[in-house]
């Protein structure tokens, strides 16, 4: 059997529209028989946080950050025209009208197709996010060396 071609996607953004694009591309790669790995870092960590996960962390700045930056796939804002949530609500309605899947469903589909979710340990540590604040679907915790090792072998590498 021929080896699968690889794709990596760094998900740096925590915005709904950008994250949806990232998952669409990951799914596109997986259905084209590629091995896809998504690295979640910085604001992208919000995608892999549990919706009702713990925000416990050490230090007042981290506590403040995690309170303001709750995360969870359902809380991702739009990158433009968020309009305090009205823009996002309208966008979601438009998506529903054309049966376009929301983030949560895209994540499930991606997982079913074998896409790997990797969480960046640097930003997790910096933001004080605990492992059990993250969804169980995270396959591994890793750093940039893992990303580089994967990206070197990959045909497609993206930063979203």
């Amino acid at each position, binding site marked *: 059997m021929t080896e699968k071609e690889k794709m990596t996607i760094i998900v740096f953004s925590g915005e709904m529209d950008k994250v949806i694009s990232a998952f669409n591309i990951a*799914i596109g790669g997986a*259905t084209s028989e590629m091995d896809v790995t998504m690295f979640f870092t910085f604001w992208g960590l919000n995608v892999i946080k549990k919706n009702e996960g713990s925000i416990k962390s050490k230090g007042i700045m981290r506590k403040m950050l995690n309170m303001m930056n709750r995360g969870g796939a359902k809380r991702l804002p739009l990158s433009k025209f968020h309009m305090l949530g009205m823009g996002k609500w309208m966008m979601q309605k438009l998506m529903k009208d054309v049966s376009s899947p929301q983030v949560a469903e895209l994540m499930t589909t991606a997982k079913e197709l074998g896409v790997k979710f990797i969480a960046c340990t640097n930003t997790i540590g910096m933001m004080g996010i605990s492992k059990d604040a993250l969804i169980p679907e995270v396959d591994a915790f890793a750093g940039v060396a893992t990303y580089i090792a994967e990206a070197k072998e990959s045909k497609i590498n993206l930063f979203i």
Partner: protein
Amino acid sequence: MKADETLDCVGLYCPMPIVHTAKKMKELKSGQVLEVLADDIGIKEDMPNWCKTTGNEYLGMEEDKGVYRAFVKKK
């Protein structure tokens, strides 16, 4: 064109038609033909390209009142 199986993806936008196609193709035996119906015009390019990357044979597409019927043969 005749097909062994039909998949209705009318009303679904990218990437869902291809996702469902990929899933359904796993159930088919080699040489069988799958007919995919979709109304997202992206399918005109997506289906032949998907076949190219996965090695399945793209047999052609028919269009009728905005609904595209793509025929794919499993490798």
